[in-house]
């Protein structure tokens, strides 16, 4: 695509919306960063925990607890 036409592409339109809503104000940008970090961390923790449990299935206390704990 010729460069002078790139400003009229639909990608550029979406980027424009993104820029105007999220990046233009620094406060919004910062709040967005921290919110994303929060959400990202929750998701990352859940995913890594699930992976760990999957890789160590049958080896952890919570898996073998029924054999030993009476109550």
């Amino acid at each position, binding site marked *: *695509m010729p460069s002078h036409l790139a400003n009229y592409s639909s990608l550029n339109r979406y*980027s424009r919306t*993104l820029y105007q809503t999220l990046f233009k104000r620094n406060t919004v*940008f910062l709040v967005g960063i921290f919110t994303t970090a929060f959400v990202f961390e929750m998701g990352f923790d859940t995913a890594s925990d699930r992976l760990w449990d999957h890789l160590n299935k049958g080896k952890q206390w919570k898996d073998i607890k029924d054999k030993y704990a009476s109550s």
Partner: protein
Amino acid sequence: MSSITTKLATATVNRTLFNAPYSSVAIKQLFEVSNSYRSEINVIPSAAWAAAQRGPDGLVTAKTFMNAAVNSSKSVIVPDAPKYKKDSGTYTSRSFAYLMVGATGVMTASATKVSVTDFLTNLSASADVLAMAKAEVDLSKVPEGKNITIKWRGKPIFIRHRTADEIAEANSVKLTDLKDPQSDAERARKPEWLIMIGVCTHLGCVPIGEAGDFGGWYCPCHGSHYDISGRIRKGPAPLNLEVPQYEFEGDTLI
């Protein structure tokens, strides 16, 4: 001579130094010609040199440069380099840059938070310590009107199964009479069970149960009298007997 003229003419047209003849005349002439071209160009620095078209939001949507390669009559050959021109729009590239900055910020924030929490978790009590720090008591063995004393985290805990009369007495006391005003409901979650840390708030002696002027506890060290709700009534102690954190699970107490 004619060959030099021809060469010179060719060189002037092509304007590359490589095929220019190395005679002083030729170079001189080349220089003059080149100079005249330059001065001609420099005379007309018009608005057309770098006219930017701006959109309604003030962003440059298109730029027009006078193409030096064409207009300076090949004095300096500026390559157009279409290969290196990016074919993304203004907002696309800008948003991409901001997105990268933001993603880095997200990663940094998460990493910082995780390292701080990990470090702080390191300092907190581990599970075995927490398990040792609890005490369970079977309350059904404590008859009405009796005290028991247990040890919890190295301190005595007074547990009193109060009678209805004692509860009424504890509630009848006016809060204005108290040195450290606290209602009985604030101190005992279930009114028949009073649970306190049995350490005098004055200097840390262990008070004696069912003694003193107010029917509660009495500290023999310096003569502090506590009432049936464990509140300080008389003597040097500044505060009521402390109430620990506790929970009822059926008939057991934790």
